[in-house]
């Protein structure tokens, strides 16, 4: 299975019926494809809508309905549109159940860096800092390493997105829960050993007696 599919499928299991969910651009967006049957969630797009739906047929899109990347979207019956203050009030005010974001680095304090690489890539933080500061649950969905280099570190070397401890980290190798004591290895992907995860991780991992296998369908 493709590593990004493993991540998206595992993250999808975290979404609960009735959640209001914000999915970041890229890998996190694909989580919507793998929602378990019977789970009904609402998707928020931070440009100002709850109830975002897949795009309409080509040629029928409306330029006033887009996602945060500027691509056409639809709206489910019951969708609600609002301005940017309301949108970020929902995010910052604890009304957003889950945010799923990509990551460049996560550290032993559960801190995320995902918005810039000084001197190389300065896209701006967009809504990421507000999302990590305010959502009830913050799930980071990222590949475990970048071209063999570890991304889960003792301390982030890139500028932080927030000092808040994220709720869960899902990679193609493992599910890791940041806690006050440190990073706890909760699950490994099918066919992956605890030793392989540790070898691919710079940060110290706390390994409990039981580490289960990710319950993702093939």
């Amino acid at each position, binding site marked *: 299975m493709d590593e990004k599919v493993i991540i998206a499928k595992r993250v999808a299991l975290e979404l609960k019926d009735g959640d209001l969910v914000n999915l970041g651009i890229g890998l996190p967006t694909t989580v919507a494809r793998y929602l378990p049957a019977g789970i009904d969630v609402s998707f928020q*797009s931070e440009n100002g809508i709850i109830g975002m739906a897949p795009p309409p047929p080509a040629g029928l899109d409306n330029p006033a309905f*887009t996602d945060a*990347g500027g691509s056409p979207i639809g709206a489910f019956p019951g969708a609600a549109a609002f301005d*940017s*203050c309301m*949108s970020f009030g929902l995010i910052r005010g604890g009304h957003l159940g889950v945010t799923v974001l990509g990551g460049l680095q996560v550290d032993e304090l559960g801190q995320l860096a995902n918005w810039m690489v000084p001197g190389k890539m300065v896209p701006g933080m967009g809504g990421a800092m507000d999302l990590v*500061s305010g959502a009830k649950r913050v799930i980071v969905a990222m590949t475990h390493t970048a071209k063999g280099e570890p991304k889960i570190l003792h301390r982030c070397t890139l500028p932080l997105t927030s000092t808040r401890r994220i709720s869960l980290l899902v990679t193609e190798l493992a599910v890791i829960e940041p806690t006050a004591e440190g990073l706890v290895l909760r699950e490994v992907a099918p066919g992956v050993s605890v030793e392989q995860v540790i070898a691919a991780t710079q940060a110290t991992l706390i390994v409990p007696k039981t580490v289960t296998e990710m319950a993702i369908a093939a």
Partner: protein
Amino acid sequence: MTKAITLSAAVEMIPDGASVMVGGFMGCGSPHRILQEIVRQGKTGLTIICNDTARPGFGIGRLIEAKAVAKLQTSHIGTNPETQRQMIAGEIEVELCPQGSLAERIRAAGFGLGGVLTPTGAGTVVAEGKQTVEVDGRSFLLEKPIRADFALVAAARADYRGNLVYLGTARNFNPIIAMAATTVIVEAQEIVPTGALTPDEIITPHILVDHLIERGPSHG
């Protein structure tokens, strides 16, 4: 008193070097006719306050390409390589601000507040040079208001008096910037008789609107 103004006359009011808020999110809900006219009139040295710089050749991206912008206060430039190029080359000054904080800073100006306290950015590079305030044991950043000389607002519909409604995700920053600038210029997709919009559906009340761009050429 009519608020109707031609596109060219509206843009002629904006001097080089003015501070200008522009509505829109990746070009959705941007006043595209006004932006094109700014480029046509060759404005320079503008301070632009906006969510993002869209893409090259689209929305606010047109202003960047035309070198109309000296300073930018924004949350995201990742979708416009030309903005990044000009920033790295030192041709444009860019202040990056978290999106929710940018919206609240503009709202604070328009709502008469001295700023907002937000947890967003506390302990990060965004906090550098800003005051941190403890409230009930939690750290917040003091984000100061942002005000501008002009706000360029895109609306779905306006009535003759300048009451505005918006559509879908094209609302974004538009009603917020309409509160925070000395002069508010509106480009509406559609202009309808006063009374056609009911009081309860109006998002931006007419008293905030100074000028309403005359409709474009009709089709058929």
